[in-house]
């Protein structure tokens, strides 16, 4: 297998009882890319992420990460091997402060969570503050995550994912609930991470300007089937892709 391929799925399928939500998706993602998966609501984008990260069990097909099969691995093992995700609906620790949220993820990454006697407040300071800084959450570090605004929660969500130091970052609608300014800032951050540390990023998004502004590769899912794939320009010209976004100019 080509070493440059960080993520590959073979005939990946998922059905919930008799409902087929994803059918034979063959997908490949090159290391170091920013790619997007687009499609209308219910197309199977989140399910695709859920299968890769072990959230749901796979009904059919296989998932490979850096050439290694990871189909139906346990969630924490998939996270440990280098795939992390940020959730569509922010999924943070509401009763911990923003700082504690991030520190938790940093400590997990550093494999220090089985330390029983050192006060956690003495550990992982530098890394945590750094993540607070780059996600713009530094002024809110002592605020409990439960009372952060939607946009800030999404930033925290991203920070939690980044703290795991992943090789592949899956972002499920990373900018949903953000103002256009925050959207821009967040996507610039994602782009910077991609350029500077070579982080591979796969994201889903509804915002057309974000999709075409940042993705190098687009894949279109429609009713659980991968219908088109290519550079943004190729997809823009693709008839099937256009049909999926009926009435919407892409």
């Amino acid at each position, binding site marked *: 297998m080509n070493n440059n391929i960080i993520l590959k799925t073979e005939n990946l399928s998922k059905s919930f009882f008799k409902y087929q939500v994803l059918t034979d998706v063959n997908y490949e993602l090159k290391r170091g890319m920013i790619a997007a998966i687009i499609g209308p609501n219910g197309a199977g984008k989140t399910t695709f992420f859920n299968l890769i990260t072990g959230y749901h069990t796979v009904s059919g097909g296989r998932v490979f990460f850096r050439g290694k099969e990871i189909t139906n691995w346990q969630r924490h093992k998939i996270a*440990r091997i280098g795939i992390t*995700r940020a959730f569509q609906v922010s999924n943070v*620790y509401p009763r*911990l402060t923003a700082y504690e949220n991030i520190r938790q993820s940093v400590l997990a990454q550093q494999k220090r*969570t*089985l330390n029983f006697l050192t006060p956690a407040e003495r550990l992982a300071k530098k890394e945590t503050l750094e993540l607070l800084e780059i996600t713009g959450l530094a002024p809110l570090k002592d605020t409990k995550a439960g009372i952060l605004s939607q946009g800030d929660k999404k930033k925290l969500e991203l920070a939690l994912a980044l*703290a795991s130091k992943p090789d592949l970052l899956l972002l499920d609608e990373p900018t949903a609930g953000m103002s256009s300014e925050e959207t821009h800032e967040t996507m610039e951050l994602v782009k910077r991470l991609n350029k500077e540390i070579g982080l591979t990023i796969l994201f889903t998004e509804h915002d057309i300007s974000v999709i075409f502004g940042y993705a190098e590769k687009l894949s279109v899912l429609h009713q659980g089937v991968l219908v088109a794939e290519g550079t943004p320009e190729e997809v823009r010209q693709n008839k099937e892709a256009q049909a999926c976004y009926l009435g919407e100019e892409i």
Partner: protein
Amino acid sequence: MEIKNPFFKKYWLPSILFAVALILPLVITQFWIHVFTEILILGLFAIAFNLIFGYMGQLSFGQAAYYGIGAYTTGLLMVKANWPFLATIPISMITAGLGALILGCFCVRLRGIYFAILTMAFGQLVYFIIFQWYSFTGGDNGLQGINPPPWLFGATSYYYFTLIIVTIASIIIYAITESPFGYTMRAIRDNTERTEFIGINVYRYMLINFVISGIFCGLAGALWGPFNRSVAPDLCSWQHSGHPVFMAVMGGPHHFLGPMIGSVIFTFLNAFVTGFTEYWPLVSGVIIIIVVMFMPGGVFGVIKQKGYFSKKQAVNNTTNGVGH
């Protein structure tokens, strides 16, 4: 007055409580020394239980099993094998921990109400084994004659001994709750699913926490036998598992000392009210209704929400009236 000493500034409440506990036997009668010894033992039981409830976010309704295993280990070793009391204490912690490991393997697979029911079922299992096994445990007669060594025979000396053990145990448990492991427990409580996605094996961590809780429940149980001079199967019953639940809810499960304060209220009232009426359960029932309805978060929840500790915390706690 500004408090300068950083240690005292952070730990003023436990420091004051400890100081009060130290001088208490000088000013109260023997009956109340007994009551306060009981407060300490049950307080440790409740603090250990709260590792699962307040920190891990699961309700165990069977912690009395591990308390009982600890109490019976000490009792049996002292009565049947003539072991010295001090030597039985670590053994009690180990057996209770082993019990928690074996039963916890099954319990921590479940969450919420199912977790509560399974812990209770296993608790009852332990209860019935002890209840039925006459030849070994004495069945419903229990074990009598668990006498502490002569230097601990007096109420006051046993009180101080208990105070030292409970204080050390509490400091260790507190250190655990403040460690990365402790924060991982809070993370699991707040969002179990998310915790898996940052690469943590939730099952394993919950099991470890369950065992730690069991070990300290066992320690509390070990202190009980020589204090009461006997043990009975009731120590393992589901009613007895309810006591730490009651204490944690009343004192505040979201503050480390909440369960201890709950133990003060519960045990004190128990001793006080039973002097007037035999309907103590009725009184405790009314209290729990009042706490649940009007002060969710217990005594500490109310104090924190009103911001008696700090202004910033008050703002942070307006969402749900809790800290940690």
